[in-house]
């Protein structure tokens, strides 16, 4: 299984390690502006990479920016992959007819959801009492309907169509526009940005996992497990996921690269992160205030470029290796 890494791959791994080390050694406090040394060019002691229009040391900003990049992109990519992976697996495995519930449950769920939608403002102001009322109402509907023969009948939940519709809905809006619109109204914070990106970036992993699950589900050993009457979760856990999760793993660096690009764009536009949080995108944006300060373009630009390039190189390495085992790319 051992593989020799090429020179380019070594460089990619080295650069990514450098980013991780930078993130670890970056100062934990917010950078302090030095108003006496603004826009100083690089290669001068003590600001070897220059300063920005507020006198922040560019090197320190790059290190702190590396940490922000990692703290935003890795959790986002992992969470989006997990969320998308779960949705895609469920949609692929259950399809539109496998998962069935009582009509009473379905009706109670739909009624509860509709009422909740109608009373969103009240739910926001008084979540507990309003939620309780909706819950009690739904339960009442459920218990009333389950006594009837109509309510006891089973109905198939079209999980696949629902997930696909949600994916189509999110994909129909350009990702950047969607993120921009939401980021513009919410207060800037790192946690808020992670949640926002997770909620908008899960669709690609979901589509991938759905496709792979559909293919794996059709394999004989899975059908044998179903025929043997094994529980659904057991089939998913022991027969489906071991064959599908490597796809997510391969996709992960690419997801990280995409999210780095998105986070950088948002920071460049001045939304998403709080103003005091250092980020490569924000550093890049300061070129707009000082267009003559080339170092504000070159250093963060190079950091972003090499990080994304390294992640892409890593992905291509993995795909090459993975092709030989699963041949999923065909």
């Amino acid at each position: 299984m051992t593989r020799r890494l090429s020179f380019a791959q070594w460089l990619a791994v080295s650069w990514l390690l450098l980013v991780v080390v930078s993130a670890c050694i970056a100062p934990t406090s917010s950078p302090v502006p030095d108003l006496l040394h603004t826009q100083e060019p690089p290669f001068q002691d003590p600001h070897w990479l220059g300063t920005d229009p507020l006198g922040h040391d560019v090197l320190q900003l790059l290190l702190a920016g590396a940490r922000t990049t990692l703290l935003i992109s890795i959790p986002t990519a992992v969470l989006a992959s997990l969320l998308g992976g779960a949705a895609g697996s469920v949609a692929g495995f259950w399809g539109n007819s496998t998962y069935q519930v009582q009509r009473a449950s379905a009706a109670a769920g739909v009624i509860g959801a509709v009422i909740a939608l109608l009373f969103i403002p009240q739910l926001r102001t008084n979540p507990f009492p309003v939620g309780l009322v909706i819950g009690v109402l739904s339960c009442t509907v459920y218990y009333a309907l389950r006594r009837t023969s109509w309510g006891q009948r089973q109905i198939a939940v079209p999980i696949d169509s629902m997930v696909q519709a949600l994916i189509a809905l999110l994909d129909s809006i350009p990702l950047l526009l969607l993120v921009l619109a939401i980021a513009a109204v919410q207060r800037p914070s790192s946690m808020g940005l992670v949640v926002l990106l997770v909620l908008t970036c899960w669709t690609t992993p979901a589509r991938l996992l759905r496709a792979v699950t559909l293919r794996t589900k059709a394999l004989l050993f899975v059908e044998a497990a179903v025929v043997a009457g094994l529980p659904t979760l057991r089939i998913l856990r022991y027969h489906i996921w071991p064959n599908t999760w490597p796809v997510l793993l391969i996709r992960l660096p690419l997801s990280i690269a995409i999210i780095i690009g998105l986070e950088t764009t948002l920071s460049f536009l001045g939304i998403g992160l709080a103003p005091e949080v250092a980020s490569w995108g924000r550093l890049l944006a300061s070129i707009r205030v000082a267009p003559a300060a080339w170092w504000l373009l070159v250093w963060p630009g190079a950091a972003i470029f090499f990080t994304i390039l390294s992640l892409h190189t890593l992905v291509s390495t993995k795909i090459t290796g993975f092709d030989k085992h699963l041949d999923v790319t065909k």
Partner: protein
Amino acid sequence: MKRILFGLLLLLWSSITGCSPSATSATPDTVRIRWARDPENLDPLIANNPSSYEVSTLLHCSLLNISDTGRNIVPWLAAASPQVERLGDSLMLVSYSLRPEATWDNGKPVVAQDVAFTLKMMNCPGLPTEMDQAMFHFIQDIRLDTTDSRRFTLVCTGQSSDYVRNSGDFSILPEYALDPKGSLRSVSIRELRSGAATAYASVTSFVQRYQAAQLAQHPDNLPGCGPYQLKNWQPGRFLTFTRKLKWWGDALAKAPPILRAVPKSITYQIIPDAGTAMLALRRGDIDLYPLMPAAEFARLRRSDADRARLSFYTVDSYECVVANFNTRQPTLQDRFTRQALSALFDVPGLIRATQQGAAYRSASIVSPRVHPYYNDSLPLPTYDTQQAITLLRKAGWREVNGQGWVRKQAGKLLELRLSLSYRAGDPALEAAALQFRAAATAIRIPVDLRPTEASLLVQQLREGTTEVSLRSIGGNPAAYDFTPLFHSNSTSLYNYSGFGTPASDHLIEAIVQTPDTAQKTRLLRRFQRLLYTERPIYVLYFLQYRIAAARRLGRVPVTSIKPSYRANAIDFSPVTK
């Protein structure tokens, strides 16, 4: 390989052509000006930002205007400066005569009845006129001259020269367009102000008609006597005004700058981001960039290529950048805390870093350029974190294990934790915010920075939900009515600090009402000391206006008062380099 090479060449060519300045698409007699924000509403009654004020000056005329230096008043719709007669010790009669040439778009003359109508409208219950009522509360009545339809007299309470000036500072609106039946003629200003007028059916129907006209979004429903009319308005993108083909000002033999209207078309491009605006100026997409960031202004001035295309102007302004402390918030209720927080602003550093040194400090809200009124005995506050700590202790705050500051207030333990709001996208304000945060963090005061969209920020300021905020306050050296800014009756209007004590209110009223200059100077100096001690706001610096304009515009008339230029008087005359 050939394809890649071709692609690279195509990319290179498009980059070169894309980055080079485009040939100007401007037509002669057209001016394109950068605005940082949309005016949002064009109703002259509720104009509440610099952009909508500027629109008002193009569409409508007031009786008086401020001279370019900002120190004198000049007649605009009035034929001459008003005649003033003081009666007893509290009343004043201000008499005006309107220019005989002034007409509305339909050819009818602008008459005193229009002024009376406007004043009544500004006091009409049911209309959004709170600001007008606060500003023009001193005008008690209007007396029309029975022999001359253009003459009238305003009856004012108070005898201050400020009142004389303010009495002519509102846009005159056409009665024929808004109230063709003259339904307000039978109602007096006093009745309207007291609310008794709501009993009149004619007033109610007038209010309904006014609201139905939706003037905020459809200013074309309100013809003005100004030289321009709105041709196109794409909110958030641009506004275009065209010069009226037939305007009464053309008949004047020697029109003053305020009554000149040279450009045939004026377009305001809404470009919130300073960097994008700079790019637009260099590409020739805009002709005039007012209030330009200092660093960019200096850089363009140094560049030979830009000097060949652009003219540069600077003028000391009466606009200051202030830190506003919302005194209604529990943490900011005492003056020592506010003084302590003021000591955390490194103002000299900020002036150097963000204004290239081209701004001037002041210990008060009165500009140091106004010598008799500025209280030069007040020391300039210094940037001193130790002093801040001392003042915080004096305010009753105590440090808890080096973690932060707390104090007991109304039986509760209060933590000193602040939010700092400012207009998003303004690099100078962001710099001040970051510097303040760093200094506050150093003495363990957590500060949450909140860059906020301009109109949302105004809304939050008005609702009193901000804590510390950074903003600019425009002023002029001829007006010293601090009622909107600091009077306790104005907390729902422009008194964003919520400050106001009986003593300060009394002082504000006395400043406005005194006709004696020496007394006014004394009162103003006392008021400045009071503000200095109470610190509801902290003046960081007064701005220098920087304007870059395309040379084809000719010599741009610049002023010390916002918007810092007179777009209507740009005459396209050649400028020597």
